[in-house]
């Protein structure tokens, strides 16, 4: 027993201190972090040494306690809530789509970078590669290729180009002359589209039989006879096909072609040709499995005022023998910036009325330049119906609101675990040191219930203020100057009401919070009167209009930041904290006072500015 281990050799000296194993040796042994030889040696020693065996057991118990403690403190939060998964999937989709657009040039760059880093590439190969790159760059420059665009971007630009062309006339009527070819048969077709009244009419220069045969070929392929050369129709048609692959290539000096190939279905390839100069669609074609093809080529395109269109073409077909009017669904056009901006303000007003703009998981975004997208996950079906029925009448909106159950149904894998979490998520037990203002709380509220009620009320005020500030910040972010400039008077007033509402409510919250905190904070500078510095009109800035100044947005951002600071400070003072932070109590009190004072000032100025703003 005198010597409990044979000489371990110098490589294993670190394992021993005197005749016993070191703590690190024991810990590594428990963690399986020793070399096989070291491990054998330690095991042999422990067999013979009571002291080391007992110490190893103590370390093992300490680790077991730690694991048990961690399980106990984290159990109320597990499994993670389900709604986060739905948001993640949406974010992942958005990122994937974004990266899809940028991946090609980056992968080339990455490949080139790796190539030049390889040490084994000899000097000659490097020089050759540089020359090839230079020549390629020269050719590229010579051809002056347009900026590479993705299929979706090309379709967006083409749709936008059509919208732009309609501005050429009041009450525009599009007159489009087309040559439609199916195999060896072809006809010339003139289409009139009354944009304002959603009507379409046209006539063909062909026999009735030929036209019927070509129309039959169209119908067989699910193509839209009334929307030729239309980017949106092409996009929708393409989206309904099975797995497709897009390629945008330069066709001639002045044209780009979008080629879409399909792995299944009767159509194997489709393409849309546009002019580079204005992204106007000039040709499209569809190739089928039996090698037949439909081609639509534009011969002319004009936008004329309604008054210049052939009289009665949309209403009295008998006047022109060959004219065959038909009422067709109007091709969708891109919404204008003003329409989208107005729709967004309406959406925000509805959400505000329903109290859904204070942190509820509902996102507003502009979808593809067409619609205002409102997406979110709400607690139950009643809430969903309430939101959907109020939002649906607003034009240019796209709703994607799910209940938590519906979101769960979309991701069945984690359904089971998350149902279990509902029961436990309400329970939140964490171990913490006393609140920083514990003694002040105990002195001011000796009764426990009163103390708890006071803390809950104060925290609730801070949270409410934080939610208001967040809502204001979102308004500031979603309404940059150019967007506000596009709003008409009514929409601008609506926006003004929204901002005013939030500012008034936030002022009340901050004022109440200041009174609450004054009950336990020491000193006299925290009284509302002392912190309220009334600004003179000259200090509020000279600009009177929301659209000409972004000052209100900057002010809102400062308010948001200060409110967050107040929220954090209140939480830190009234709720438990890490003991190591207790030394910061004075600093937190000072920060809280400063933030409350800043907020009073900023809110007062913002309130005055918004109220005095002349939106006309």
């Amino acid at each position, binding site marked *: 027993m005198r010597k409990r281990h044979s000489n371990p050799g110098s490589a294993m000296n670190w394992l021993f201190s005197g005749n016993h194993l070191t703590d690190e040796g024991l810990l590594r042994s428990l963690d399986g972090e020793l070399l096989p030889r070291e491990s054998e040696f330690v095991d042999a020693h422990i067999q013979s040494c009571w002291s080391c065996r007992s110490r190893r057991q103590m370390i093992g118990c300490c680790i077991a306690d*730690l694991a048990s403690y961690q399980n106990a*403190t984290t159990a109320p939060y597990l499994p993670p809530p389900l709604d986060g998964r739905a948001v993640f999937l949406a974010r992942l989709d958005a990122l994937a789509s974004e990266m899809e657009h940028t991946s090609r040039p980056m992968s080339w760059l990455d490949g080139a970078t790796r190539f030049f880093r390889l040490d084994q590439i000899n000097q000659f190969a490097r020089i050759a590669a540089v020359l090839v790159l230079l020549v390629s760059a020269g050719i590229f420059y010579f051809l002056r290729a347009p900026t590479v665009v993705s299929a979706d971007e090309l379709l967006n630009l083409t749709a936008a180009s059509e919208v732009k062309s309609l501005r050429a006339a009041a009450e525009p009527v599009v007159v489009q002359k087309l040559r439609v070819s199916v195999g060896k048969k072809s006809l010339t077709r003139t289409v009139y589209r009354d944009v304002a009244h959603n009507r379409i009419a046209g006539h063909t220069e062909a026999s009735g039989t030929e036209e019927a045969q070509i129309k039959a070929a169209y119908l067989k392929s699910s193509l839209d006879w009334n929307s030729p050369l239309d980017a949106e129709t092409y996009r929708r048609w393409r989206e309904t096909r099975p797995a497709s692959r897009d390629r945008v290539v330069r066709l001639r000096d002045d044209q780009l072609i979008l080629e879409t190939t399909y792995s299944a279905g009767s159509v194997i390839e489709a393409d849309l040709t546009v002019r580079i100069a204005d992204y106007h669609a000039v040709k499209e074609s569809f190739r089928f499995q039996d090698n037949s093809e439909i081609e639509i080529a534009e011969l002319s395109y004009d936008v004329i005022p309604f008054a210049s269109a052939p009289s009665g073409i949309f209403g009295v077909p008998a006047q022109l023998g060959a004219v065959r009017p038909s009422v067709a669904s109007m091709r969708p056009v891109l919404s204008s910036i003003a329409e989208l901006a107005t729709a967004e303000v309406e959406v925000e007003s509805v959400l505000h009325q329903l109290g859904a703009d204070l942190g509820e998981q509902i996102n507003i975004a502009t979808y593809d330049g067409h619609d205002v997208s409102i997406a979110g996950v709400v607690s139950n079906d009643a809430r969903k119906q309430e939101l959907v029925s109020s939002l649906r009448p607003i034009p240019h909106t796209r709703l994607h609101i799910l209940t938590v159950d519906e979101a769960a149904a979309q991701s069945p894998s984690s359904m089971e675990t998350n149902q279990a979490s509902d029961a436990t998520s309400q329970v939140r*037990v964490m171990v913490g040191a006393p*609140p920083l203002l514990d003694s002040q709380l105990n002195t001011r509220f000796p009764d*426990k219930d009163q103390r708890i009620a006071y*803390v809950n009320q104060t*925290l609730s005020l801070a949270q409410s203020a934080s939610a208001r500030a967040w809502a204001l910040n979102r308004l500031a972010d979603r309404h940059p100057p150019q967007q506000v400039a596009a709003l008409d008077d009514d929409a601008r007033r609506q926006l003004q009401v929204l901002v005013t509402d939030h500012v008034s409510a936030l002022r009340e919250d901050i004022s109440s919070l200041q009174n609450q905190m004054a009950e336990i904070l020491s000193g006299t500078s925290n009284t509302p009167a002392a912190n309220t510095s009334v600004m003179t009109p000259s200090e509020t800035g000279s600009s009177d209009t929301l659209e000409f100044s972004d000052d209100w947005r900057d002010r809102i951002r400062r308010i948001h930041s200060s409110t967050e600071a107040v929220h954090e400070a209140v939480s830190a003072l009234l709720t438990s904290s890490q003991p190591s932070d207790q030394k910061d109590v004075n600093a937190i009190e000072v920060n809280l006072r400063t933030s409350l004072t800043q907020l009073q000032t900023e809110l007062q100025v913002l309130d005055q500015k918004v109220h005095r703003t002349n939106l006309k």
Partner: protein
Amino acid sequence: MEQRIVQLYDTLRPSLYRYLISIGFSQQDVEEVVQETFLRLYHHMRNGGSEENLRAWIYQVAHNLSSNFRKSRRRLVETTPEMWEQLSQSTFDETPGPEEQLLEKERYLRIHDGLSKLTQLQRDCLNLRLEGFRYREIGEILNVGTSTVAGSLRNAITKLLKGNG
């Protein structure tokens, strides 16, 4: 690729979630860090990044994000007096008798007190070890050497044992 990320997300999210909660983040902030981590993973894999030991990679990114988050938000473990009272009146699991409950509660309070006296590095090492990482992996995640990890764990356990004694 997206499917793979979703698969990894579903598999690793609960443990990563628990890890972040255990280092003191609120549920809302944890979700933010977890999502950002897996979005970065997608970015990493799309750009041909190494797929060796993705679990350690994910924890490393989450750790870095949480460090930045901590600096910017100074997020603390929030416990209202109400919850605090609850601790003294309740136990963490259903042990049979009141005496066992009391002992367990005291043990947890002692561990909590002991943990609060450790350095950040020691706490990080312990938490990652509790997640099952090897010393070498912990070193990679925290960007320190394996010997530093071993030393930190040794000191942490020694301090905790002294606290128990």
